């Protein structure tokens, strides 16, 4: 422990050391450096680039929630986008009357309550059935929103916030303002995530994921633990949805469909299930993939040569996105099921043990 450069194993000798959030001062330094870098990053970026960053950070919050339900408790959720939607619509309905620092937690709480209800089957059945329960909720959500006049039948509901503590939020600084709000919320959520999951409840979730009968025999209540996981994951989704509503200045139901839920699940898997670093890397990877595939298909549409060699009726441009997205998921699951987090881990251990291989 004295000399972190020569550390080769686990030298922790007490429970206090074992439960610290950061292993040594280098981790504290690197986290602070990362935060500072994230804070000054927008100064070098344009509005549209900050928008991409905002999306990534918002999805990171949603993926953190998914990592509680799916990564920790092992309950596959294909309804995280619907939980985001619950948060977003709660915000849209309450934004005219309440300040934004109240509406966003309110959205999270509403989503948590609904997540609890959706998770009720977990009292009796496991894995696959729960995936289908969330699938059913996802479909019901989209249908109900798309047909309720109170929710504009799924069309855009404006969510406006024009000033904050005297600061005018207009066209120019909108993305930048929300970048810092989202970053702040993300840091808060990551801290809560880490603290919650290294304690009693997190260990209960892992135990239930690995073998819920054994966990039952050891005195944990698997049903209650799973419900807790569902509600908490939905809470994170609701917060992310609320932020998305403000950031986009509007709520549309297309943002919260099954396809988005699958994309969130893909982010969680590509990043690495059940890890904080993965929850950040996964959304970044998938969003950049989407961005560049869209650019590529734009380019293909405008390029005369490519247009001339593709046969009539063949739509290469719109094939690119689902094709690449699906391939990424399948390839990661086959070759690197632990996700990008594993590369990060290998990189770190390479530098720590250099010049030795391991």
């Amino acid at each position: 422990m004295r000399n972190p450069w020569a550390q080769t194993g686990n030298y922790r000798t007490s429970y206090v050391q074992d439960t610290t959030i950061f292993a040594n001062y280098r981790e504290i330094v690197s986290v602070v450096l990362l935060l500072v870098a994230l804070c000054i990053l927008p100064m070098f970026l344009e509005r549209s680039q900050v928008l991409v960053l905002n999306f990534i950070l918002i999805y990171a919050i949603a993926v953190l929630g998914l990592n509680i339900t799916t990564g920790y408790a092992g309950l596959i959720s294909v309804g995280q986008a619907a939980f985001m939607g619950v948060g977003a619509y709660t915000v849209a309905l309450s934004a005219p009357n309440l300040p934004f620092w109240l509406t966003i937690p309110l959205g999270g709480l509403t989503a948590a309550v609904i997540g609890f209800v959706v998770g009720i089957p977990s009292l009796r059945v496991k894995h696959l059935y729960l995936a289908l329960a969330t699938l059913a909720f996802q479909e019901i959500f989209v249908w109900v929103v798309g047909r309720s006049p109170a929710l504009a039948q799924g069309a855009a509901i404006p969510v406006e916030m024009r000033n904050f503590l005297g600061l005018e939020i207009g066209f120019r600084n909108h993305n930048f303002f929300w970048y810092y709000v989202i970053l702040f919320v993300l840091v808060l959520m990551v801290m809560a995530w880490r603290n919650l999951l290294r304690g009693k409840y997190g260990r209960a979730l892992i135990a239930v994921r690995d073998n819920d009968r054994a966990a039952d025999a050891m005195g944990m209540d698997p049903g209650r633990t799973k419900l807790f996981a569902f509600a908490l994951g939905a809470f994170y989704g609701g917060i992310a949805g609320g932020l998305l509503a403000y950031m986009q200045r509007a709520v549309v139901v297309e943002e919260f469909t099954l396809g988005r839920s699958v994309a969130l699940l893909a982010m969680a898997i590509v990043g690495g299930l059940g890890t904080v670093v993965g929850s950040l890397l996964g959304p970044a990877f998938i969003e950049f993939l989407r961005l560049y595939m869209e650019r590529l298909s734009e380019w293909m549409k405008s390029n005369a040569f490519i247009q001339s060699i593709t046969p009539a009726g063949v739509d290469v441009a719109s094939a690119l996105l689902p094709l690449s997205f699906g391939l990424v998921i399948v390839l990661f699951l086959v070759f690197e099921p632990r996700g990008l987090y594993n590369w990060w881990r290998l990189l770190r251990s390479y530098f720590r043990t250099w010049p030795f291989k391991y």
Partner: protein
Amino acid sequence: MIDFIQNLISGVAVGCIYALAALGFVLIYKSSRVINFANGQFIAIGAFMAYALAVWVKLPVLLAALVAMLLTAGLGFLVERVFLRRMVGQPIISVIMVTIGLASVLDGLMYLTPFGSGNFTFPQFLPQGGLNLGGLSISYPQLLAIGFTAIFLVLFSWFFQRSVLGISMRAVADDQMASMSLGVSVQRVFALAWAVAGLTAAAAGIVVGAVSGLNQDGLIAIGLAVFPAVILGGLDSVPGAVVGGIIIGVLQSFSTAYLDGLFSQIGLVGGGSQYVMPFVVLLVMLWFKPHGLFGTEEIERV
């Protein structure tokens, strides 16, 4: 009353399509505990292959349908060989996610063909109109759906009761370890289950094509409608898949006829309750009777 029976009949016809799609789904689940999220894509690919063979290659429609079913069975076999075999022993979430990724890949591949957008209809191979029984009318496509399902059921029950492969599939579904030690090739059974799933999915797609035309989104949506059917019938029960499929079809038909008005009274505009009712049933079933009507409840030991 006559309306009621008419709705019932059209519901049964749609339900037979779901039942066909659900059969393959249940077979895969029963033998290998894999949930196949790419089922809708199989349906679409089978239907488009039949169309391509019938219209472009100019095969007779029934022969085209048969060849397309066999080709889709081959695709199912290939999918199992290339992707699912590597996933044996992996956590369930990875396996499910692989089928979701596969669904996306197949979607992309379909966009590379002219079938990615637009509507297609099979060449007319059934006579126009339908049977008329005392005020009730059954169109020929509806009869085709019901007949196809009946034929498949007979074939399946023969296959599972009499043929060696069918019996070994039942054995694997019952107890993998025991059947392995008795010399059943579990790998071959898995591959066979996927092939049969492809076959039935293609059959479902072809019937949809005959009833209501081919459209990629519409065909893939059937893959989602299968989930309520299999949960209702029991995820691991072949008769359950048929009963569940038919119940869901009838439910959809009835909710269009009787529920849409009710929903508009509570302030939901636009109708279309047929799309959501199966999922409501799915959720309610999971709350109260998660193993379905015919499913087996698992008994677990630590």
